[in-house]
């Protein structure tokens, strides 16, 4: 992997961390609001379905996770288990794609019925 790519990965992880910091706070506040106001699943879906603001918010959240997590895991497996190289990088691209896929599916599920 080129030095430029390594630097881009590092930068992407920092930027995605900043996005996640905001998204996690909004998500936690949303959950606390839903619990404290006794919202049922149907109530929640009634507010999220067809709501483009929630679609954009959670799509952004999922995208940030899909970028952030694999880069962090790449560092962790390298430092903890000594696993480095192209095999690890490919596996983590797959992990990022899987997170994006699963997360995207969940976002669509709360925006519109599949």
């Amino acid at each position, binding site marked *: *992997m080129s*030095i*430029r790519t*390594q*630097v*881009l990965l*590092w*930068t992407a992880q920092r930027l995605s961390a900043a996005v996640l910091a905001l998204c996690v706070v909004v998500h936690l506040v949303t959950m606390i609001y839903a619990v404290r106001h006794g919202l049922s699943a149907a109530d929640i879906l009634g507010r999220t379905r067809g709501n483009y603001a929630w679609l954009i918010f959670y799509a952004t959240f999922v995208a940030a996770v899909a970028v952030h997590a694999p880069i962090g895991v790449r*560092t962790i497996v*390298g*430092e*903890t288990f000594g696993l*480095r190289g192209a095999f690890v990088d490919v596996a983590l691209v797959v992990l990022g794609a899987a997170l994006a896929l699963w997360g995207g599916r969940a976002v669509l599920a709360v925006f519109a019925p599949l």
Partner: protein
Amino acid sequence: MGDLGDLGQQYELASKMAILKEPVDTPLAPRLAPLPRTLTVRVWRGAENGGLQQFEVPRLENQTVLDVVTYIQRNLDATLSYRYACRVGMCGSCAMSVNGKARWTCRTHVANVATDDTLEIAPLNNLPVIKDLVTDMAPFFDKWAQAKGQFKGARTRADEFARVLPDSPQRKEVDAAIECIGCGVCYSSCDVVAWNPAYLGPAALNRAWTLVNDVRDTANAPRLAAVAGDAGCHACHTHVTCSERCPKHIAPTAGIAGLKRAVAVAAIKGEL
């Protein structure tokens, strides 16, 4: 103090020299007298597969850890290997692990580190052990070279001297980082070096940071490429142990953060 061998003689000499310098009413004799107790010292012996050997060393006031090691080598076991040169905190050769923390032993007073009058002295972490307290410093200094820690200028001796104002921002950055003595304490204390053997480490990156801020230097583009990425400044987790333990009170962490900014600017400009 004659029974303390060379170290005792050194203390006697030091006390005589102090008498010449200090006012006559200074209570030198009680301050310099040996304390009525001994120090239990466990010292690493052998190479990587060695073990700790215990010694009893007379406890003295104003005694440094290097004094302790020297006493053992001169009076108890002449085969003990260790390094030192200047004994005044300039050369950077006497760093060892003292009770689990890397320190410059010539300037580390026993009174500040010995808990229950015991010391455990071992070679620096993160470096191959040659014998006893002597580590192979080659990997440490090789990384200075990998980080392009050599100055590259464009001027010749026929040119005028470069004028670098003392209060310029870049000169201030250099001043804050330039006093490194290459002791290896930061490198030995760094978790990331332990986890990622390719990591250049705090000292090499600190050196690169001084050159990045040297307005006379002409090799910054390749230097920034050399210090970027998984083995460079981007591997630092900002644990700040290097800055906490640097005996010269340098903050390599700050320099590493500066390198990250410089690399980002270079990447944006397409110079990386």
